């Protein structure tokens, strides 16, 4: 006996089910498409989301011992007060934080950046730093030692505007300065959640700013010798003993907040994906109901010839499950392909799947198959319980 015949003899229900599906090819194809969409939605959103999370978490890696200090801005009588940290405040932070590196940051409200040809870099932010080399490494060019007349820019700005060391940018800061700088270095990518949003920032020397106030200070503790918790507490004690003057936040906390927030967003997106599977379920239930109605007399013949109800249910559920299995079989590689594209884009390696990411593809496949099976139950039950006499007329 040839193997195909053996299979048919072994699993007659599956063989019958497959042939029945091939009878309404277009209808079957549509139902399969619905499953594919659902599986791809869940799988791709899941793996993509994981890749995104991975990317962000990598970005946080370097900031384990980092905290940010900002004035706790108040809104009183139509005026903003307590908007800046003074030089004195910075000194107090330095004293309180002990061995930590403290980096005061100018974050002017009104600024713009232009290329030499006059193009505005809308999304660039301007920040003033004293010594960026304390904090960042250069991807291109070299970090200036005695920083006075050049600027360093974030990786994203450089990539989006085709800028490299040696190019010039005009930087205008309201009430402060308006002049052209040579780019000394392009920073290594930091990820969007890095403090200061370095990837989208144009850093100018702090000496360019006349005003003494700073909008933010970055505190970095060498975690092998000190503790960022201790530094944070010391700063809080120094400033906030009587009233809240500054807000101190550890990047680690931000990372946790991000992870939590991201989890919520991802669950929501996967929920959206799951809804598409629900639509697939409706499509399959409809397909199977139509099939059951069309084949009523045929099912009646099966019943007359002694097929138990269970066999009829199995046959129709096998049909709907095949739709799910085929849909999942097409959907899973598609989801993986999309996942690979996202991995390449965010992590630079198409195979950088995490276990969690792959699990979503598995979940998509599982849900796709189970959804199809469940969607087939009612039509199958209905067809099987039709009395054979009624079905035959």
């Amino acid at each position: 006996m040839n193997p195909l015949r053996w299979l048919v003899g072994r699993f007659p229900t599956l063989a019958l089910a497959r042939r029945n599906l091939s009878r309404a090819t277009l209808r079957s194809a549509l139902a399969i498409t619905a499953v594919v969409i659902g599986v791809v939605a869940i799988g791709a959103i899941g793996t993509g989301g994981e890749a995104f999370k991975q990317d962000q978490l990598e970005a946080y890696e370097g900031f384990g011992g980092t905290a940010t200090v900002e004035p706790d801005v108040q809104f009183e009588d139509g005026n903003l007060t307590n908007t800046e940290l003074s030089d004195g405040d910075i000194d107090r932070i330095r004293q309180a934080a002990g061995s930590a590196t403290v980096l005061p940051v100018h974050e002017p409200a009104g600024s713009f950046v232009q290329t030499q040809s006059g193009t505005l870099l809308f999304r660039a932010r301007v920040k003033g730093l004293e010594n960026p080399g304390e904090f960042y490494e250069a991807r291109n060019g070299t970090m200036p030692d005695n920083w006075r007349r050049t600027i360093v820019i974030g990786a994203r700005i450089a990539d989006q505007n085709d800028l490299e060391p040696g190019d010039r940018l005009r930087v205008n800061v309201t009430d402060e300065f308006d002049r052209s700088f040579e780019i000394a270095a392009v920073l290594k990518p930091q990820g969007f959640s890095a403090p200061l949003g370095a990837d989208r920032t144009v850093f100018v020397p702090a000496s360019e700013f006349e005003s003494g106030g700073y909008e933010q200070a970055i505190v970095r503790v060498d975690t092998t010798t000190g503790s960022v918790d201790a530094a944070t507490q010391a700063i809080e004690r120094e400033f906030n003993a009587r009233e809240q003057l500054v807000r101190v936040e550890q990047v680690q906390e931000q990372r946790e907040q991000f992870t939590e927030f991201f989890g919520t967003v991802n669950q929501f997106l996967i929920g959206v994906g799951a809804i598409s599977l629900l639509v697939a379920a409706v499509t399959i239930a409809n397909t199977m109901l139509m099939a059951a109605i069309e084949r009523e007399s045929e099912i009646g013949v099966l019943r007359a010839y002694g097929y138990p109800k269970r066999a009829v249910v199995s046959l129709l559920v096998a049909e709907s499950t095949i739709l799910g299995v085929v849909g999942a079989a097409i959907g899973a590689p598609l989801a993986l392909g999309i996942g690979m594209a996202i991995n390449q884009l965010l992590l630079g390696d198409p195979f950088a799947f995490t276990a969690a990411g792959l699990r979503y593809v598995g979940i998509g496949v599982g849900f796709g198959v189970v959804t199809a099976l469940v969607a087939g139950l009612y039509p199958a039950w209905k067809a099987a319980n039709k009395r054979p006499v009624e079905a035959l007329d």
Partner: protein
Amino acid sequence: MAPEPNEDDGRWQEAGDHATSETIPTDAIIRGTDVVKEYETGGQIVRALKGVDFGIAPADFVAVVGPSGSGKSTLLNLLGLLDVATSGDVRLRGRDVSTFTDRERTRKRKETIGFVFQSFYLIPTLTALENVEMPRMLDRTPTKTRQRARQLLERVGLGDRLDHYPDELSGGQKQRVAIARSLINDPDIVLADEPTGNLDRDTGDRILELFDELRRDENVAVVTVTHDDYVAEAADRVVTLIDGRIRETESRRANFEEGPDP
């Protein structure tokens, strides 16, 4: 030759009637006494069978005739365990079928009964051979089933059409496939509801000849419904149903020559 209808000869054959009780074959496969079948449609009750007696002995060839709506299909459905009587007693080999669960009825159908329908009801995605195998496809005996199916198709003259699909066969050929299918479970009775209704006269005649041969070769009883008189010619007995009652039973077989008349 038709006797005046009265309560007694309104019954079909042997069962439940004192005058004919000696002629009931002890080996009757299925028998019914005073069987009534009512349908309820939209609050109205239709009495399709108004108290009929029947019995089918092995290798019987019975033709059921009568006008449309007289209850022929209803009777066949009861014989085929596809439906249950409203009242009266129907026994399959002595067992009261009204006590059967749906599952038991299904199993008994598989063991005992083969069906042939007016509209053939072949499965379009299966070849002739597979259609014949269909009633046994869930039995895990594919080789034996295949052998038997092939043999039956050869028996009905379709040995060269095994791998044809139904839409590649003529009406008469389809009905032959259906007849082969009805025999695959080696039933005791084949029930055919107007098997020649969709066929021309010559083809229909050949189908009936086939039934006549098969019930001898395969030792199977055949009950066939028809409204064509010529069909009845081939049968051992002709049962005429009119308005839910048996009006006339004509027996040609030697052992029933006495007839039910007192």
